[in-house]
C-alpha cells in the first residue's frame, strides 16, 4: 500500500525550477534512497513533503490524505518527521528538552504532563545512545551526537515516515557506521518508512531497497540500487559526458 504519493509536483524559486513535475510513490515500510548531484532539488523535495514549502503545482498525498497545503506542524502530526542536512538543534535547551518538544507536540497530547513527556523523551535518547548526555545543552554536543539527537527528535514525534537528510555528512567512518546501525535499529524496532537523501553511494546501495535519482529537479531514474548504479543517465549526471 502506498504511504506517500507525490503527483506532478513543481516548485520554483523565481526563475529557477528546483523541482520539476516530480511524481513518485513510497510504500509503507519501504526504505527509499533519494540521490542526485548538488542542487538537484533533493532537499527542496523533502521540504515540500514536510510542508516547509508549498508546491506551485501538483499534489502530495500521505496515508490517503492530501497534505499539499498543510502547515509543517500539521504534516508532522499526521506522521511525517524529518532531520536536517546541517543539524538544527534548539541550542539553548538540553538534549532531553530538545526531544521533549517532539514528544509533546508531535501528536496531540494535551493531557500529557511535562514530566511524563520528558520520561518518553528520555527513552528516545536512550534508544539513540544519548541518555548520558540528556542534561547537556545541545550547543555543547558533538556533530555525531547532534545527528543522533536529530534522529531521537524525529522518533519522538511517533512518525510513520522519516525524511533523513544526509545523516552521514561530516561524520568519520566509525561514526558513520554507528549512524547506519542506528538507522537500521530504528527501522527494525519502529517499522517506519524512510526517505533517505545521501551522498555516500555505498550506503545508499547497501541500506536502501529502492533508489530515486533527481537531476535538475527532474527524476531521471528510479529502481533497485544495482540497476541505478549501472544506469548511463545516472553515471552521466554524476560524472558528466565523455569528451572523446
Amino acid at each position, binding site marked *: 500500500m502506498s504511504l506517500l504519493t507525490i503527483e506532478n509536483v513543481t516548485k520554483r524559486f523565481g526563475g529557477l525550477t528546483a523541482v520539476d513535475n516530480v511524481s513518485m510513490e513510497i510504500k509503507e515500510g519501504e526504505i527509499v534512497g533519494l540521490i542526485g548531484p548538488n542542487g538537484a532539488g533533493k532537499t527542496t523535495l523533502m521540504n515540500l513533503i*514536510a*510542508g*516547509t514549502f508549498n508546491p506551485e503545482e501538483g499534489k502530495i498525498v500521505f496515508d490517503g490524505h492530501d497534505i499539499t497545503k498543510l*502547515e*509543517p*506542524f500539521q504534516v*508532522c*502530526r499526521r506522521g511525517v*518527521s*524529518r532531520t*536536517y542536512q546541517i543539524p*538544527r538543534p*534548539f*541550542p*539553548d*535547551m*538540553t538534549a*532531553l*528538552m530538545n526531544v*521533549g*518538544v*517532539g514528544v*509533546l*507536540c*508531535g*501528536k496531540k497530547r494535551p*493531557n500529557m*504532563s*511535562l*514530566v511524563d*513527556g*520528558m*520520561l518518553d*523523551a*528520555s527513552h528516545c535518547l*536512550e534508544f539513540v545512545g544519548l*541518555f548520558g548526555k*540528556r*542534561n547537556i*545543552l545541545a550547543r555543547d554536543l558533538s556533530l555525531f551526537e547532534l545527528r543522533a539527537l536529530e534522529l531521537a*527528535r524525529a522518533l*519522538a*514525534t511517533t512518525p510513520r515516515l522519516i525524511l533523513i537528510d544526509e545523516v552521514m555528512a561530516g561524520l568519520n567512518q566509525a561514526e558513520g557506521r554507528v549512524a547506519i546501525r542506528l538507522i537500521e535499529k530504528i527501522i527494525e524496532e519502529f517499522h517506519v518508512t524512510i526517505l533517505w537523501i545521501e551522498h555516500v553511494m555505498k550506503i545508499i546501495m547497501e541500506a536502501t531497497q529502492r533508489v530515486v535519482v533527481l537531476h535538475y529537479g527532474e527524476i531521471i531514474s528510479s529502481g533497485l540500487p544495482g540497476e541505478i548504479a549501472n544506469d548511463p543517465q545516472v553515471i552521466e549526471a554524476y560524472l558528466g559526458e565523455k569528451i572523446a
Partner: protein
Amino acid sequence: MVRIEHKRALMVFRFGDKKFEWPIETRYWRNPILGIGLLALLPIVFSGRPDALSLIATANIYACIAIPLAWQMTGIGRLNFGPQAFVGIGGFIAALASVHFGWGPWATLPFAILGGLFFGFIFSPLTNIAKGLYFSLITLIIPLIFLEITYYFSIFKGETGLYGIAPLVNVSSIKAEYIITGYMALIMMVIFLFVVVKVFDSRIGLYSAAINDDEEVANNLGLNIKRWKIISFVITSTMVAVAGWFAAHYFGTFSGVTYLQLPFMLKILLMVMIGGRGDVYGAVYGAYFVVILEKALTVVGLAHYILFPLILLILLFALKEGIYGLYRMHRYREYYPTIRVRKR
C-alpha cells in the same frame, strides 16, 4: 477525592486524571522566597520616607512591565520595542473611565484587561508576519502613533495628560496610603512573577524556548507556532496593560508624554537586558537597579542626563548575561524548565 503522594523531591496531588506536582526541595523556592521577603521589608524600613516608598512602588511597577516582556521576548522570539503602547492602553482606559465617569480602580480594571486583550489580539498577527528588525521597527512605531493620537484628540488632554484619577486606596493618613499602595505594587509584581515562573516551568515554557531557539524546527516538530506566539503576545500585552492601569491609579495622572515616548521604552528594555536578558528574575533585579540608579544620580544635578545612559550602556556591554548572570555564574541554572530524569 485528592490523593497525596510523596515522591523524592516532589509532593504529587492527584485528583481523578489530573495531577499537580509541587517541589518540596528548598533549593527550588528558598532564594525567591528570601528575595521577596527582603522586598517586603523595604516599605516598613522606609515607612518614614515617602520619596523612598514612591521609588520602591515605581520599581515594582516597572518590574510588572519588564517581567511579561521577558516572557514575550522568549515566547515570540522577537524583540518588542514598543511595550509601552500597552502601558498607554491600560493607563488611558483607567484614566478616561475614572476622570469622565468617576469610576474607582476596581471598576476600571476589567476594562483595562479587556483593552489589553483586544489590542493585543489586534496587533498579535505581527508576531507571525514580521520578523527580526521589521518587527522591532513596527512595534517601535506603534506607541509613537499612539502618542500623536493623544495630542490630536482632546479627550486625552495632550501634553498635560489626564489628572484627578481615583487613587488605589482612600485612607486619611498619607503615610499609610504610601505603605499600602507600596505593598499593592509589590503584591502585583509577585503575582506577575509567580505567573510567569509557573508558565516557564510548564510545557508552555518549553514551547516558548523552542520558538525562541528555532521556530521553523519547532513547527516541523509539530508545534503550532503561530498559535503559541499569538497566545504569548496577547497574554503578556494584557499584563503590561494591567501595569499601566496600576500606574494611572497610583500616580493619579496619566499622559502620553510620560509613558509613550522612547526614553520610557528604553528604560524598560534596559531593565530586561541589564537584569538578565529575557530572564524573569533578572527583570526584577533590573527594574530595581535602574530605578535606584536613576534616583541616586540626581545628586550630580544635570549631569545625570549624560551619566545615567552612559552607565547603563557600559553595563550592557560589561554584563553580557545581565546582573542575574553574575549570580548564575556561580550557581548555574538553565533558563527553561530543567527536569532531571533518572535511569530506570
